[in-house]
Structure formats: structure tokens, C-alpha cells
């Protein structure tokens, strides 16, 4: 089975017992696209990949490759490649043989197998380890074998389940580049699961953000990053400050919310429509809403400026910048980032980058559980 023009998942679902690990997944993947699946741990990303690969039978929906229905095809007939989250290396085969396995299955000429295998080994920087068994490798080395094994086949669709999670930052960058390079030079289609937003943002053409087995938002990195469709997505995309408040004045897209004894202006957001783009409107004064803002968009200034004010509590050194928690006068705790040298206990002014405070409908108290708020680091 070679290339395809598009891959369509319609209403794909997978149930374990009574729990839906994946539900109602509708997604069309164009040939050559790089799709990243994102979402909290346990949200169904691996399940989705497994369904696509044919390793888990669907409990609902269907998968179409162009006009052919493929969800009943066994995995080996689909011709997709997969990097397993737990690698699933063949313990009895050396690194080299693990990588060559797929090529051999295709009965390629010996020469070509050797050539391509060696190239893949080099790509993942395992030349000195090529004759070891998986059990003799470090975690990151194993992960690289898994990557090489799946990509050496240059399959029409590569499914990667957190393929870089055990690599250090430097190697991760390099591998990212390699994966992008492979993707582009061979015109592969890639579905990539990652928990690393930066990875997702920088590599993917489109992101699929999931939660509890359901898609929350599908969009370009920029869309998802700047316009999260729900406060859950915002939460996940690094809007670490999620404040359940009551909407004040609403004026078109602009909505005023109370904060720190005063009010700030936010941009109203509405749940996405079918086309996957967030729509505005329909938020009214008095609604329970969630205001979301990233730490980077909360700026600390000198104490003497008017507006929001707070006291620095916890600070954490993070490379160039500091992560600081600031408690406002109304007790709301804000996560911020700053390159100023601040000390715990210091009083500071706080300003929010205009247009970067997003306001979401809360979706009812059931949708905004206290526990979740607490875990989001928010003092209610």
C-alpha cells in the first residue's frame, strides 16, 4: 500500500469497558500533513494512534483512506509506521536488526537494507551501539532505535507516540530536525503525539487538542496558541492563570472582569463552531466566566505604578527568567514570568499585556470543578 491523498476518520471511538478512551474523532488528514496530537495524560492520544495503526479495533466509526475503508485491515496491510510510546523493541534483535526488520519484511535487496539501515543508525546517532541488544541500551538510546525502526521504512503515514520524551534537549532538537527533514523530503504524512507544546507548535501543520477522549480544538499552531477554543485548551496551552470570575461589562469582543480589586479588560471567547475556529459573542454581563492569561503576559513593574498590585510569594529560577507567584490584593494568585530580579515579599505592580487576557464561558460549575482549579494552582 503506497501513498494516499487523504485519510478520513469519521466518528472514531474506542471504549474500554464502560469508559470511552476515545470518542467521536472526526479528522481528515491530507497527504504530507504533519499533525500533532496534544492533550493531558490519559486523554486518548495513544488510543487514537493505535486505532489508526490498526492495533486496537474501533468500537465506533470508520477510517477511510481515499475511498477505501481501512479500519478492518490488519496493521501489516495498512503500511503505516509507528513509534510506540514504550518502544516495543524486539528484545532478541540487535539495534541493527531491529531497524532492518521492516526492510527485510519488504524483501528489499540485501544491499539496500544494509545501506538504509546504516543511514538510519547514523541518523539516530547509534553507530557505536548498533550491535547491542535493546536490553543493553539506555532509555534514550532505545527510544532512538524505535524512531529509526519506524522511519527507515519511509511509510506513507508515520505515527509517533511521544518519540522524543526520553531525549535531552539538545538531542531532541536534533531529532526534531531529522523528523521534519524526513517528513518534508519524503513527503510523509505524520501524526505525532507529544506532551511538549513547543514541539507541537514548532513541528506541526495542525494541532489536535484532546481532552477526556474528545477533540477540543483542531487548528494551526498559531490558532491554538493564541486562540484556545476553551479554557481547558488554554489551560493546557500554558495559560497557567485561570480565574473563575463573573463577567462585568460586555462590549463586543471586549469584556471587563474584576481582578485584584479593580477590573481588567479581556477578550471574549466562545466555543468553536464546526469549522474549528473560535467565535465570539453571546457572553453577557453576570455570566460565570473563566479568565485565562499566560505567565509571560503578566508583567511585573515597580511598586509605584497605578493599577493591579500584588506581593511576590514564591520565586523559582528558570534559566534566564524567574517564575514568580504574585498574590493580588483580593487574594488571587497569579503566575508570572519576569527577567527582573524580584525577591519574595516584594511589592510589585502587575500589568497584563493588552489583548492577552482571554475570557471563556465557564460551562457551568460541573465544567469548572474546584479540584481542577486547585490543581491549576489557583486560589479560589
Amino acid at each position, binding site marked *: 500500500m503506497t501513498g494516499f491523498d487523504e485519510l478520513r476518520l469519521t466518528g472514531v471511538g474506542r471504549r474500554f469497558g464502560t469508559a470511552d478512551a476515545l470518542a467521536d474523532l472526526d479528522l481528515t488528514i491530507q497527504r504530507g500533513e504533519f499533525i500533532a496530537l496534544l492533550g493531558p495524560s490519559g486523554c486518548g492520544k495513544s488510543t487514537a494512534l493505535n486505532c489508526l495503526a490498526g492495533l486496537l479495533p474501533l468500537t465506533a466509526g470508520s477510517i477511510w483512506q481515499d475511498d477505501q475503508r481501512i479500519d478492518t485491515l490488519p496493521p*501489516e496491510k495498512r503500511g503505516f509506521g509507528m513509534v510506540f510510546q514504550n518502544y516495543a523493541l524486539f528484545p532478541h534483535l540487535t539495534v541493527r536488526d531491529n531497524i532492518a526488520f521492516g526492510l527485510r519484511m519488504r524483501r528489499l535487496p540485501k544491499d539496500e537494507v544494509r545501506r538504509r539501515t546504516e543511514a538510519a543508525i547514523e541518523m539516530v546517532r547509534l553507530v557505536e551501539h548498533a550491535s547491542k541488544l535493546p536490553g543493553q541500551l539506555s532509555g534514550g538510546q532505545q527510544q532512538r532505535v524505535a524512531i529509526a525502526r519506524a522511519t527507515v521504512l519511509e511509510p506513507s503515514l508515520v505515527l509517533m507516540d511521544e518519540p522524543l520524551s526520553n531525549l535531552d534537549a539538545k538531542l531532541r532538537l536534533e531529532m526534531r530536525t531529522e523528523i521534519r527533514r524526513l517528513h518534508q523530503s519524503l513527503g510523509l504524512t505524520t501524526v505525532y503525539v507529544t506532551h511538549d507544546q513547543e514541539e507541537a507548535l514548532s513541528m506541526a501543520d495542525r494541532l489536535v487538542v484532546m481532552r477526556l477522549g474528545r477533540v477540543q480544538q483542531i487548528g494551526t499552531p498559531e490558532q491554538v496558541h493564541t486562540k484556545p477554543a476553551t479554557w481547558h485548551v488554554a489551560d493546557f496551552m500554558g495559560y497557567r492563570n485561570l480565574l473563575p470570575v463573573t463577567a462585568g461589562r460586555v462590549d463586543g469582543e471586549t469584556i471587563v472582569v474584576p481582578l485584584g480589586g479593580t477590573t481588567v479588560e479581556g477578550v471574549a471567547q466562545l466555543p468553536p463552531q464546526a469549522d474549528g475556529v473560535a467565535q465570539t459573542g453571546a457572553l453577557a454581563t453576570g455570566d460565570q466566566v473563566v479568565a485565562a492569561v499566560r505567565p509571560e503576559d503578566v508583567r511585573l513593574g515597580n511598586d509605584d505604578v497605578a493599577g493591579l498590585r500584588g506581593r511576590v510569594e514564591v520565586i523559582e529560577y528558570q534559566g534566564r527568567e524567574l517564575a514568580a507567584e504574585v498574590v493580588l490584593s483580593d487574594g488571587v494568585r497569579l503566575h508570572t514570568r519576569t527577567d527582573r530580579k524580584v525577591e519574595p515579599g516584594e511589592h510589585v505592580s502587575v500589568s497584563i499585556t493588552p489583548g492577552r487576557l482571554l475570557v471563556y464561558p465557564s460551562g457551568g460549575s460541573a465544567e469548572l470543578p474546584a479540584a481542577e482549579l486547585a490543581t491549576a494552582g489557583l486560589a479560589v
Partner: protein
Amino acid sequence: MSTVSGLDWRHRLAERGVDRRLWLLLPATVFVLVLFIYPFVYGLSLSFQPMNGGGAFANYQKFFSDAYQRDTILTTLKIALPAALLNVLAAVPIAFRMRGRFRGKRLMTTVLVIPITLGTVLTAQGLLNFLGPTGWFNRVLMGIGLTDDPIRLTNNYWGVFFSLIVTGFPFAFLLVLSYLSGIDPTLERAAATLGASRSQRFRRITLPLLAPGLATTFLLTFVLAFSVFPSAVLVGNPAGSTRVISLAAYQAAYEQYDYAYASAIAMIMGAVELVVVAVVLIWRSRLYTGSTGGKG
């Protein structure tokens, strides 16, 4: 510091596999030494004390110079090797198919294992009854006109062979099935995503991971088949084509009451087995043995 070098020494030993875990060998070793090796050495030395005089090796010479006795080795191998091989080879694909989930699987497994309970006597009686000249099998054959005269399937090589299959197959199946269950199915799935067909997955992934277990299974089935005794007598032709070596030893011990000679024959029997076993073990030691992912 002397204590330090003492400790370093311990690391070095640990590196070579000598550490306190070796104590776990102790109970079994003591047990085997006291209850087996000690009596066994008597048996061994006895084999060098021929009843009717002669040199220490007289018993061995007697065995090897008598074609009637010597041939028992070949006779036994001719029965045991094919039977053991067939048992293992048949067990593998069947056990392999019993892995997935399907309705009635538990029943199937149980039914496949059940013949293990038959024992040699029931098997022998059953084979004699069933395959005998007026048994159901021949009745059916003659009934549907496949043959005019009953075909003889007992009191010859085939009788013994069948009895080894009936008793040996479930044994092999049970072991193989259990060994198989320890192999992580994810590995096969990984192979599937790499384009390996069912049979390729089996050959390239499952089989190699199963191989150490298969070696052990073969060994045990072979040893059981090699020492086949009651069925060689009951459903075989003990004076002729199924005159196995254990029968020769039995006759020496219990008909001629020449325990020394019997011991010698039994030693030879053990030695022949040991050769086969050694070949298998050497092969096994070259296989990958280790975690197969299924239990971790």
C-alpha cells in the same frame, strides 16, 4: 584498607555472578546431592562390578558387543526423537492459535491438556481397544470400505509412537502455551506495523523468543519418550521393533536380576540422552534468553 579491598573483591565476585543469591541454589543442591548423587554413585560403581566377573568394563563391553542389546539405542532414538519433535512442533502452532481471546477458549485449552491425565495404562489399553483389529477405528475403516482387512496399528512401532503422542503432546502443549503467554503481544504488533505478515511475525518474533522454552520442552519430552517403558511393552512389540533400551535395562534388572548389568545399561541410556540434551542445551545457550516483555 583491608576491609575495603575485601569489599572490592565482593564486587568483583558479584560481577562474575557470585553473590548471596547463589544461596538459593542450596536447598535444591543439597537435596539432589543427598538423595540422588549419593545413591546414584552406588549405581554407577555397581555398573563397574559385573555380576559374573570380568574387568570393570565387562558390562559395557557386553552391551556393546551384543548387537541385540546395542541396537536398542537406535531403536529408542528412532522412536523418541520423532515423537518428541512431532509433539513440540505440533504444540507450537496450536498453542499459538490459542492465544487470542475467543469463545470456548478455556474449554479448548482444558480439552487439549486433558490427555495428560490419561497415564500410560489407560492410553495403552485405549490404543489396544481402539486401534486393535476389531477396534472402532478399524471397524470404521472397514465400514466405509477404506480397507478390507484390519490394519495393524498396535503391537508395533506405531502403537508406541501413538502412545507417545497421546501422552506427550498435551505435555508439550501445556509448556509451550505457558511459555507463549509470557511474550508481550505488543512486540508482535510492533512487527505488524513494520509490515510483517502473520507468519513472518511468528517466525521472526514469536519463535525466537519462544525458542529457549521450546528447547526445554523438547528436552523434557525427549527424555520422557526416551525412557518409554510401559507403552513399549504394552502396545509395542517388546521383543522386536520396540525393544527400547529401558526394556533391556528392565530385563537385566528384573528378569535376570543382574543389577550391575542393568545399571550399566541405564548408564548408557543416560549417556545417550545426555548427548542429545547437550546438543540442545548448547544450541539453547546461543539463543536470546531474557525478558520477553510479557511480564514487565
